């Protein structure tokens, strides 16, 4: 496995992790833009634009793009998050040049108004689809409360209102500013012909005009550093109650982020964790889990619970007790080692799939300008000590803090609010 990097004169980074034994080539354009880069008037534009990129360029129709991907046998898609917008395709190696060219051309979309109006309907359907699904908006609301005035508070899809009122000019302007070459990384993994990749980039992206990009970091203002909060979204017809809780954790540039992921696995992985044995194995909860997520300048532990509505209050209390016991009594070496091996095993399996590696290598470079091989990550995981995990617990306690949102049949109940405030 080897890593290669070249920067075009206009600032576009071209990187590749080449695996000689791979059977496929994955190619992705990672644009350093997402919901956190939007203003109120632009709320939802990053994701909406991601859809519009598939609607064609001045000389390629949407049908033509779809037909070409299918003709190549590509598995192509895109996603938008708080910090990234990515367009990717996995193909057989002989299609690398064709797939790179197509993705590159798509990065300069026509953004036609009639396409914009039709696609707006699809975006509204997507918002409605998620609104009908668990956790019924609890995640978006929790993020909004937890992040407060920080730009990460913004949900990726936007709202029905923000999408409906958005004119096409807002998107065109956003695209011009954010899709500047220095704000984009072209990344490939697997069986990559790097020379061909660079020459594709020169051919299709070399004339992209460079624009200065303002810095993304925002002053930290997380309300979660204050008293815990609890909110209820009442969904009378749902069967289960869904809870999302967010509390502070190490950010993406913090060396403790790996220890934080290990801590989250010990406490709340979807199997074999403390929450699993306490609530899922016993059938008290459908789900009770915890994971760590990091961003450029913030990090969090996200806890998810789904259970019978009448058990929600008790189980939230139990989760807090699990977290408190870990902080006060510490973790034992056996569960630490079990989970470290579990994480390492997971990394090895993910690492041998180039299609999966794309989503580690691309964003890592986009965020930090660094490359980490699977071996680098494995070494970091294997070098973690119990003390590292205890330090994370001490720096970012999970108990008695955080923003919690419940969505489900529970009616507004003042006693629940008080119970949480009293912690």
């Amino acid at each position, binding site marked *: 496995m080897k890593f290669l990097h070249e920067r075009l004169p206009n600032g576009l980074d071209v990187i590749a992790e080449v695996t000689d*034994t*791979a*059977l*496929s080539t994955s190619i992705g354009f990672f644009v350093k833009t997402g919901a956190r880069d939007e203003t109120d008037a632009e709320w939802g534009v990053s994701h909406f634009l991601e859809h519009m990129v*598939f609607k064609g360029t001045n000389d390629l129709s949407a*049908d033509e793009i*779809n*037909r070409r*991907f*299918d*003709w*190549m*046998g*590509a*598995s192509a898609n895109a996603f938008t998050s708080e910090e990234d917008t990515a367009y990717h395709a*996995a*193909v*057989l190696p002989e299609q690398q040049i064709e797939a790179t060219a197509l993705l590159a051309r798509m990065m300069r979309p026509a953004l036609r108004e009639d396409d914009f109006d*039709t*696609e*707006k*309907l*699809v975006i509204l*359907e997507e918002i*409605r*689809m998620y*609104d*009908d*699904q*668990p956790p019924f908006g609890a995640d978006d609301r929790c993020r909004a409360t937890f992040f407060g005035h920080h730009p990460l508070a913004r949900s990726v899809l936007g709202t029905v209102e923000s999408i409906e009122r958005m004119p096409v000019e807002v998107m065109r302007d956003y695209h011009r500013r954010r899709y500047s070459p220095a704000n984009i990384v072209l990344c490939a993994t697997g069986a990559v012909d790097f020379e061909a990749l660079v020459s594709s980039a020169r051919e299709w992206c070399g004339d992209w005009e460079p624009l200065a990009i303002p810095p993304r970091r925002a002053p930290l203002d997380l309300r979660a550093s204050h008293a815990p909060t609890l909110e209820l979204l009442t969904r009378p*017809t749902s*069967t*289960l109650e869904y809870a999302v809780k967010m509390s502070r954790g190490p950010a993406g540039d913090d060396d403790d982020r790996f220890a934080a992921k290990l801590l989250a696995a010990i406490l709340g992985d979807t*199997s*074999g964790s403390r929450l699993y044995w306490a609530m*899922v*194995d*016993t*059938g*008290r*909860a*459908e789900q009770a889990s915890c994971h760590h997520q990091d961003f450029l300048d913030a990090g969090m532990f996200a806890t998810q619970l*789904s*259970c*019978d509505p009448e058990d929600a209050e008790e189980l939230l209390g139990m989760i807090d007790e699990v977290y408190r016991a870990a902080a006060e009594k510490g973790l034992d070496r*056996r569960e630490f*080692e*079990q*989970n470290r*091996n*579990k994480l*390492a*095993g*997971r990394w*090895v*399996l993910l690492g*041998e*799939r*180039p*299609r999966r590696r794309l989503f580690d290598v691309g964003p890592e470079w986009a965020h930090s300008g660094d490359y980490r091989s699977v071996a680098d990550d494995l070494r970091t995981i294997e070098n973690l000590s119990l003390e590292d995990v205890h330090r994370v617990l001490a720096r970012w306690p999970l108990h008695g803090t955080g923003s919690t949102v419940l969505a489900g049949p529970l009616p507004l109940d003042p006693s629940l609010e008080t119970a949480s405030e009293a912690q």
Partner: protein
Amino acid sequence: MKQTLHSATLDNGIVLLGEDLPGLESVAVAFHTPAGAVHDGPGRCGLATLSGEMMLRGAGDRTSRDIVEILEGSGIQWAQSVSTSHASFAGAMVARQLPTALPIYADILRRPRLPDDELENARQMVLQNLAGTEDDPAHRAMSALRQLHYPHPLGMPSEGISADVEAIGVDDVRSFVRAHVVPRGMIIAVAGRIDWDDFVTRVEALFGDWDTDDASAVAIGSRGERVRFVPHDSQQTHIALAWSVPPYRHDASYEASAALSVLGGGSSSRLFSEVRERRGLCYSVSAGYHTLRDYASAICYSGTSAARAQETLDVMLAEIDRLPGTIEEAELDRVKSRAKSALVMQQESSAARAAWIARQWYHLGSVRSLAEELARYDRLNVASVEGWLAANRPAGLTIVSLGKEPLEVPREVSA
């Protein structure tokens, strides 16, 4: 592409399958026992799922915690699932851990404790999962569709029905495991960085002396009504359609799945282009091929807001009706290209290949080589697909809609 496949059959009927994937460090193993939901029995829908869950709750001299601790402590990613036909236990790991994993799976399959005092927890776990599916409208629509379309009990939900799960006793679980977790009909598949001879020796030592009675066959009954509306308080209406096509082991299944892929397989498919791209009616719309051993279906799905659901259904039906006689060579070329590329890329995942070779054996009684599979796609042409479609026009549709208001369904499509 060079491919090395292995197979062996133990005296007790267990079939062993293997595939070398030399580029990988990992190995994946999967045990498929013929203890699927099809054997749940009347009033016991969910028995296979509850039994599968109980099998993990202590086996041999290990408690359920011991099992999870040793698997996860060895970096083994484990999974357990129940389908219509099988209860499956699987693990993916770095190759050197395989000798640790095999004896644990042997205990789970041959020596499950099925303890009384775990039944309530296991039952509650199954019920929690069922309650979760109640909140997933797309899942509910698809589940109702399979239940109506396939003859009973082939379409019954493997996750169970709450009232039935409530009624299951520990003796039901014990007799189910005794009757259906048996060597005959069992497939053990391994793929990745394997040493086949060593694998066979180990499996022979762990499973070779296992002998039980054969499982009994299932009586197949009749199917449900053609059209059903499921009231649900949601913003979107979910539409699911099915009609019968040949099962995978039938040669014509390639023509059938190619035709369905033209209809709704990729982003250049008819349904995606017409329903989503041109009309903006929905976020998700698709058509696909779903097969059991003796029955198979074409399945179409879309979810869209209530006000536009009728138009979505009408356009979907029009596209289905328009399909025979209109397939173009370029469309079929794209379908073939997608299928072939997916097959090759599958070789990068040991778990995907272990699942694939087991599936082939279950349906065909043999494993087709990748070269043969690719050749079958190469042989497809417009004449063969159109020929099949002309003789098998989509008809007798089962139609489920789930949402606030029922949809109008033209009588002829379900006839």
